[in-house]
């Protein structure tokens, strides 16, 4: 089973990289680019019988730092 875990910064956590990209896009002449937030995508291939609780635990224990990040799991 293939999973895609999307990790994003929580709302309100300043994202300096996102802000730099926003400025660069504006500098390239793209008007109207507002907030830019950079996250990451982790693709996992797991055994088909992996249960949701285990997947959630993987996210909480390692893939995301829940102090600053949210995550969501997509089944591919």
């Amino acid at each position: 089973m293939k999973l895609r875990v999307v990790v994003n910064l929580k709302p309100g956590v300043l994202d300096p990289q996102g802000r730099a990209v926003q400025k660069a896009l504006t500098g390239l002449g793209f008007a109207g680019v507002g907030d830019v937030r950079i996250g990451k995508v982790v693709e996992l291939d797991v055994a088909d019988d992996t249960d949701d609780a285990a997947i959630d635990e993987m996210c909480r224990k390692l893939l995301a730092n829940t102090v600053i990040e949210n995550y969501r799991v997509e089944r591919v």
Partner: protein
Amino acid sequence: MKTAVIVFPGSNCDRDMAVALESVIGAKPAMVWHGDSELPADVDLIAIPGGFSYGDYLRCGAIAARSPIVRAVVEAAERGVPVLGVCNGFQVLVETGLLPGALMRNERLDFVCRDAPLKVENAQTAFTSRYEAGETIMVPVAHHDGNYVADEATLDRLEGEGRVAFRYAADINGSARRIAGVLNGAGNVLGMMPHPERRIEAAHGGTDGRRLFEGLLETVGA
């Protein structure tokens, strides 16, 4: 006094830390590899050095914080053994949850490598007893991800409980409330971005870092 320095693949300040410990304490620390699962018996002080453990993969300190030896470090910390985490060591300690908050990319995205004046906020800890509260000391920083963040309630609690050990005299990386070093609730775990082990003798440009180790020798080694 028995000390240990934890070494990960990608650590690069482990030897500086070992030299600093030996210079002040008078005995070589045990260098403990990340894959080990046990610390030396009766260790009195554990140091987690700077560097780029596991290549900073996923998040700085994230993989190191889940390594076998760090599980033993967490258990020792919970028993009250003093733990000092410097730079990447600080990142590892927040990733374990021993210290609150997180360390993010510097606000201006730059790698900051220079001397940083620090204000000593709490001089009544095992790590800071050789400093005066309110004193400004000079210790170098060298990091890309030292921007300390925590929610307002956590920051208020840290301030109220005297758990901000050091504060940057001026902003260098965007850290909330210019926090440079924080303690755990029991006061036996200190994480700091600046490198005290790089200011051990006059030839380093000063000895303000040496006093942290001298304080530990006095309070922990007694």
